[in-house]
């Protein structure tokens, strides 16, 4: 109980703009998600893939005593959790791609489970790169994609997390998707020409 309250305090501080609390929250959430991922994957092997939404929400239920916190704090958690999920999923995909090519070191502590089917892995890696570029141009677009795609949040949840209207989320999603599509296709063509 004590542990949960601590996290709640950190979360409240983070949502009030405390940078150190944000960093702390980040690492708490990251570890918790990894732990949940481990547990969910135990014994499952390849039969089932990970539900990212389930992860985000389960992490929330475990960490936060939700009686104590306001709606706003909760939204903030989802925003951060989505970013963490992006990291978790991309890291996982990167390791598997490296492994498949027979190179690179594999993090032994995080076993060989994969989060995604093979055909989605490259998409995730390319998207991660494109999103970093998009963040420079329009941070909100990229946040919307982070929440919806990596965090598995609904439009409503995303709107809460980013403190914008649902309508904005809908529209940003369409625009961001268009930009990413064109950007990623262009990158791919460039790559093919270079080869």
């Amino acid at each position: 109980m004590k542990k949960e309250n601590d996290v709640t305090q950190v979360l409240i501080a983070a949502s009030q703009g405390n940078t150190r609390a944000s960093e702390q929250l980040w690492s708490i959430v990251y570890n918790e998600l990894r732990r949940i991922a481990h547990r969910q994957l135990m014994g499952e092997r390849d039969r089932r893939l990970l539900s990212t939404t389930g992860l985000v929400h389960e992490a929330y239920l475990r960490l936060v005593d939700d009686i104590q916190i306001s709606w706003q704090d909760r939204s903030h958690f989802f925003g951060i959790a989505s970013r963490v999920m992006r990291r978790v999923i991309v890291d996982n995909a990167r390791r598997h791609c490296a492994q498949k090519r027979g190179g690179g070191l594999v993090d032994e502590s995080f076993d060989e489970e994969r989060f995604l089917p093979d055909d989605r892995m490259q998409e995730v890696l390319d998207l991660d790169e494109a999103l970093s570029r998009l963040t420079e141009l329009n941070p909100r677009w990229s946040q919307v994609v982070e929440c919806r795609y990596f965090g598995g949040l609904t439009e409503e949840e995303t709107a809460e997390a980013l403190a914008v209207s649902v309508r904005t989320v809908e529209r940003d999603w369409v625009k961001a998707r268009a930009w990413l599509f064109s950007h990623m296709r262009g990158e791919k063509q460039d790559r093919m020409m270079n080869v």
Partner: protein
Amino acid sequence: MEPLISPEDWDEIDRIFDAALDMPVPERAAFLAEACAGRPIILRQIERLLAASDEAKEADFLAPLPHQLNGASVRHFMGEEQLPAGEKVGVYEIVRPIGRGGMGVVYLAERSFGRFKKPVALKVVKRGMDTEEIVQRFRFERQILAGLEHAHIARLLDGGVTEDGLPYFVMEYVEGKPIDQYCDDRKLTIRQRLKLFKAVCEAVAYAHRNLVVHRDLKPGNVLVSADGEVKLLDFGIAKLVDPDTSTSTVPITDAAERRMTPEYAAPEQVRGEATTTATDVYALGVILYEMLSGHRPYRFKTRLLTEIEEKICQEVPGRPSTAVLRAEGDDTPDEIGRQRSLSPGKLRKVIAGDLDAITMMALKKEPELRYASAGELARDLGRYLERRPVRAARDTAAYRLRKFVERYRTTVMVAAFAAFTIVAGAGTTWWQSYEKRQEAQRVQDEIRGRNATIAFMERIFERVDPDRPQAYTFTATDLIESGLEGIESLHDVPEIQANFINEIGRISVNAGQIDLADSLHQAAYTILVQTLGPDHPGLSVTLTRQGDVYEARGDIEQAEAYFLRAIELDPRNSVAHNNLGRLYLTIGRSEEGGEHIQHAIALEPENLRYRRNLGSYYFNTMQWEKAKEVYLETAAVDSFYLAYANLATIYFVDKDFIEAARWYRAAVDLNPNDYLIWGYYGTALYWRDGQSLREAEPVLREALRRAEERISALNSRDPDVLTQIASYFSLLQDHDAALLYVREVLSLVPTDPFVFYDLAYALEMIGERGEAIRLLRSAMENGLDEETPKDDPVMKALIEDPAWRKP
């Protein structure tokens, strides 16, 4: 390549793109031509984005990642599905939520029977988990529990599906506390706890007989009501087992297999292997461990599965009796003892032995080595409560050793006293006859001894897996325990056995287990007396160790007697000489101490510890030059902060402040905790720099801080420390603070001439010469040597003052 577009352009693109999206497709071209007139780059960008937008939609680009539960609203996951008070679920009315588990929320609910209301516990599966599997599991749980009728198992009453389609079931409502909390709150004794726990085992045994395994036993699932009735909750992940093969006969979902609490999970659960009745025995073992010792067998630093798995599957936990002395947060040995109405030492003794053995047997890594069922465990606890021999202890070596020590305890006492009275002589015959034995026989003896030693060492280290050095840290306690377990194997070579017992005893002293060390040395002594006779030189080492034990306990007289006897039996025992010498030095019998230490050095000239003690002897007897020589010599080979500090003090007395500061610095680097050394260091710097505070100030401030820490650690206003504080303030020229502390010390009525002297010094430093002279006079009236002030420039000024002559 992206064309160069400024942030302002991007805002523009965003705006126009947005507007275009709102338009019917045929109208877009005209709108864009107008909006982007003269800005071909922006126009091209927007056209590209619009085309990409359609294509992305077509291609289902960024489709949700697999298995996401998109579309479900936040409420489903956030616990908002929690039912409000007054809500009807079947014939039950929700009162309030009382708990939340991995599966869902548990409510206190009521069923009305006319004017009566019956409370029940109502468990609703949370949304997002209402898969077919879980519904099936709930049906399953209902069937099992309906078949379990036991006074100590919470009964299943009903079940169904809520209006929203969520499965629920209804259990007997139990008002109670988790068993560990109940025991601590009521400060139950160990026997009371065991009786309660035995009832838990019997309830689990009943379930086992009905082919039900709980699989998630933990204190939170074992409640005790206010009138002391035990109730087991939540057979939620129970499974039927086949009584013959103990393997699953009913398919259990993966989700259930994985739902466990790491602290109470058995190795086979962590590994995802078949769970059996032995899995429950393991969890019961963890609960018992906790109820006895106040600690869990393992502490997880992280919640990472790798760590949990490694610990649970590989690490052998310390025994509950040793865990008692562990401190974790508020769970200090004293607190744990208090909750059990015993002192920590007493508690350790009560648990050590049979209760250790019972707990450790339940916690065996291999399911087949544990009690076969909870019933077996309950029966062994019954044997313990009736003070009959327990099954668990029968075969373990540690049990035999304990019995061994117990058996010898009385003889040991007698023998120890006898040893001092019997005149030397008879014992040496054995030694001589040994010398005269056939060479062949001796070789054979040696081989036997060596083989036994190797086997014993292997036993000790078998717990350490060389392939996983990082997985296991071998502590002193582990060494003591595994040594004790193996020691009986040396039965045929008593001298070697005794030596090892002595070694384990020595480790025990260092690990703070003085009582254990005491009984071990006594056992070793008895073995040696039986083998060698009562006056053999071979007894000398053991006697020295016993002397150490008494010294550690503060029993100086006994310690002295043991050391003297050790020297008497073997005058060449340098350790005994050294330890006796050190003992004399600490109690102020410096000359005798010096003699014994010189003797030890004569026997073993290279020993640094002996030489350092010699330095202390010279220091204590103010033979500065000799002390300096010895300290410099030892400091060159080894670093020991007191040697440095003493060396510095010698230089200080010589007024070589440069060297003094250098060695004080070295001493505080090695041990920064001693305020006195900081103080001397600061003072040395002050004089070195020509009475300047340039470098001295921060050091003196550190001394002040440490001294104040010391005061609060002592929890009393110690005049010695206060005097030092006064002198630090006087050096720092803080007139008022120094005076305040001087007054406080004086109010404590000291008669110590050195306290008066130091206070006079402090007063002189802050310019209070009148007061200083008065106090120096008090110092002399209380026995201070008249020559002392003459050596110090500051104090010399006082006796040269005209006022000194006039009373």
